C-alpha cells in the first residue's frame, strides 16, 4: 500500500479492506449518520422485517423462480440456470432494496425521496414505490440516458415521479448522481436520497447489499432443491454492482463455487471506451467512496462507455474491489457486441428478453462455452428484462448507432 494514499488502520466502519469510507461534504454527514442508525435498528426489528417481507411477496412478486435454459448453450457442456429478477415487479432487481429504503425513509419521517438513475430501472423502482407509499419522488437522469431509455422515463412519469434530465458533464449516471447529491445537501432534513447501488458513501454499500441478499439466499436454496448442491459458478454483471453483490453474498462460503463478475468492455478494453473499472481503473475517490474508478493522471473523472446505460458508470462498489483483491470473485468483461449477441440469442432461444446489463453476464457464458469447458452448472443473475432496451437495440441492429 502506498504511503501517499489515505492509509486506514484496520478495520474501520464502512470499509471493505481499505475500500469505501465516507467522502462527502461535512453537511451530509448527519444525514448519513441518521440513515445508518435507522438501518441498524431496522435490520434487527421483526416488525420492519415482516413489513418488508410482506411487500416483497405481495407487491413485488418474490420469490422469483430460477429457470433452467432449454436451448441456450445446450450441448456445450454448460448447463445454464437463470435467476429471474426480470420477473420482479418493475422489471429488475432494483425493486428489492428500494422497498426497504422506502420503509426506512418513512421511519425517518422523510417527506420526499430523490434518486439518480442510469438505465432508468432504479428510477422506475423508486417511482413505483413512491406511488405505493404516496411519497413525492424526484429522479435525476442524464440527458443522454433519458434519450436511450425513453420508455423508462415515461414509466416514471406515469407513476407520478418528476424526472429531471441532467445535461452537465457526460450527461449520464455520474452526472445524475452529482445532481442528486447537490439536491440532498440542501434538502436532507425532509428528503431521503435513495441510492440505487452498492456504491456511494457509507452506509449505502452495506445497506444496499443487505437488502439485495435476498436474490442469493433464494437462488442458493432453489439450486439446492433443484440440483442437490450449489452451482459450479455464479455469474452477474457489474456496473455499480448491486445485483452481483446480491447474488454472490449467499455463495461466498461455498468455496467450490466460482463467482464471476462481468464488467462492460464497451467497444473493447483497448479502445478506452468502456466501463471496466476493475480491469482498467485506478484507485480513487468518487461519489463518497475510495474505490476503483476511471480517472486521468490529473484526477479528473473520465467518461465511461457502455451500450447499456445501467453499466455506464466510471466507478464500482467498494466491496467489489475488496472481493477482487482477495481473489474470491473473478472479474471479467464483455463488449457491447458480445452483449448484443447474447441479448438476441436468449430472446430467440429461450423466449426471454434480457436487459442489456444482464446480457453481459450471458455473454461471458457464451464465450466460456466456446472454450469447450468441462460439464458445469452455471447460475446467471438475469437482473432485469430488456423491454426498456428495445428501441435502443433496434437502432444498433439497424446499424444507425455506431
Amino acid at each position, binding site marked *: 500500500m502506498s504511503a*501517499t*494514499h489515505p492509509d486506514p488502520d484496520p478495520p474501520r466502519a464502512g470499509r471493505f479492506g481499505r475500500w469505501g469510507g465516507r*467522502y462527502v461534504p461535512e453537511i451530509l454527514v448527519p444525514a448519513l449518520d441518521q440513515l445508518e442508525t435507522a438501518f441498524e435498528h431496522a435490520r434487527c426489528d421483526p416488525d420492519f422485517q415482516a413489513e418488508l417481507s410482506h411487500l416483497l411477496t405481495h407487491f413485488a412478486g418474490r420469490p422469483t423462480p430460477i429457470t433452467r435454459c432449454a436451448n441456450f448453450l445446450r450441448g456445450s457442456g454448460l448447463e445454464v440456470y437463470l435467476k429471474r429478477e426480470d420477473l420482479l415487479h418493475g422489471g429488475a432487481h432494483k425493486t428489492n432494496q428500494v422497498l426497504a429504503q422506502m420503509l426506512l425513509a418513512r421511519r425517518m419521517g422523510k417527506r420526499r425521496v430523490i434518486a439518480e438513475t442510469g438505465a432508468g430501472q432504479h428510477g422506475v423502482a423508486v417511482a413505483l414505490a413512491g406511488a405505493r407509499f404516496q411519497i413525492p419522488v424526484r429522479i435525476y437522469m442524464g440527458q443522454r440516458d433519458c434519450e436511450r431509455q425513453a420508455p423508462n422515463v415515461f414509466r416514471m412519469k406515469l407513476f407520478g415521479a418528476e424526472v429531471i434530465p441532467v445535461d452537465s*458533464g457526460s450527461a449520464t449516471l455520474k452526472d445524475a448522481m452529482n445532481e442528486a447529491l447537490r439536491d440532498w445537501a440542501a434538502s436532507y432534513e425532509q428528503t431521503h436520497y435513495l441510492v440505487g447501488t452498492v456504491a456511494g458513501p457509507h452506509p449505502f454499500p452495506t445497506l444496499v447489499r443487505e437488502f439485495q441478499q435476498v436474490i442469493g439466499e433464494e437462488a442458493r436454496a432453489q439450486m439446492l432443491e433443484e440440483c442437490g448442491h450449489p452451482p459450479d459458478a455464479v455469474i452477474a454483471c457489474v456496473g455499480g454492482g448491486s445485483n452481483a453483490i446480491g447474488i454472490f453474498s449467499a455463495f461466498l462460503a461455498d468455496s467450490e463455487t466460482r463467482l464471476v463478475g462481468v464488467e462492460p468492455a464497451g467497444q473493447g478494453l483497448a479502445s478506452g471506451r468502456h466501463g471496466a473499472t476493475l480491469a482498467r481503473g485506478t484507485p480513487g475517490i468518487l461519489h463518497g467512496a475510495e474505490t476503483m474508478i476511471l480517472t486521468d493522471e490529473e484526477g479528473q473523472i473520465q467518461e465511461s462507455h457502455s451500450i447499456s446505460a445501467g453499466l455506464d458508470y466510471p466507478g464500482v462498489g467498494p466491496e467489489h474491489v475488496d472481493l477482487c483483491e482477495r481473489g474470491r470473485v473473478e472479474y471479467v468483461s464483455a463488449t457491447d457486441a458480445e452483449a448484443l449477441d447474447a441479448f438476441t440469442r436468449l430472446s430467440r432461444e429461450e423466449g426471454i428478453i434480457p436487459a442489456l446489463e444482464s446480457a453481459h453476464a450471458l455473454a461471458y457464458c457464451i464465450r466460456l462455452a466456446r472454450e469447450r469447458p468441462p460439464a458445469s452448472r452455471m447460475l446467471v443473475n438475469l437482473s432485469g428484462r430488456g423491454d426498456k432496451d428495445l428501441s435502443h437495440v433496434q437502432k444498433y441492429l439497424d446499424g444507425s448507432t455506431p
Partner: protein
Amino acid sequence: MNRYQDLFNRLRKTGRAAFVPFAILGYPSPASSLDWIRPLIERADALELGFPFSDPIADGPAIQKAAHMALRAGATRATHFAILARIRAEYPDLPIGLLVYANLVYRTGLDAFYETAHQAGVDSVLVADVPVSEIQPFSNAACAHGIDPILIAPPNASDRTLAQIARTSQGYTYVLSRSGITGTETVAGRPSNELLARLRDLGAPPALVGFGISNPEDVRRVLRAGAAGVIVGSSLIEKAKTPQGLRPYLLELWQATRL
C-alpha cells in the same frame, strides 16, 4: 510566519473583517486566469482558489460551469501551480487558500500534493468532499508540509463534530451559514450567531463564512453574527457578466467589511 494570523491581527487593529474572493484556477482559460484574478486581489484580504474538478458535488451550477470551462481550455495541475507561483511572487503577504476535491489530491499522492502546494506558496487547503471523520491522512500530510488544513463547519454538525473541526482546522474555519451548495439559497440548522459562538467557545480559528453571500447586506449580516470575514465566489462570476462589471461590486462588498 503565518499569513492568516498576521491578517487577522492586522484586521483587528483596523476594525475590519476579511474579504476573501474565490476564483477557479484556469478560468476562463489558463492564459487569462490571472487577468480574472488580479481585480479580485485589489480588494482581497486573502484569496481562495479552486482547482477545477470534473464532478464538483459541493458546488452549484455557476462554479461547475466555470470549472468545466477551465478544463476544456486545458487547465492542469501544472498550469494551476504556475499561476499560484506567480501570484505568490507578486503578493508575498497575501494568504492563499486552495479548495480542492479529494480525488485530485489522492491521484497526485497526498505527500506530493501538499509538498507542491507548499512550494507554490499556498497557505491552506480545504478538501470539499472530505469530512472531519476522514480528514486525518490529509491533515497529517498538510501539517507535515506547513500547510493549514481547513475544515468546513456546517450549521447541522453535532457538538462532537464541531469540537473535532475546531481542533483540526488551522488558519481559519470555513463556516457554512446554511445548508446546500455554493450559489444557492436555503436556510437550515442553527442560526449563524449560535454556530459562531460555539466555535469561539471551542477555540476554533477565526471563522470565514461562505456559501450564498452575494450582496453587502449578506456580508453585514454574517459579520454582525460574529464572523471574522466572508468568502464570496459564485456571485462574482455572475456579476462579471453585467455591464457594470466586477469592480463596483467588489468595492461594495469590501466596504461592507468595515465593522
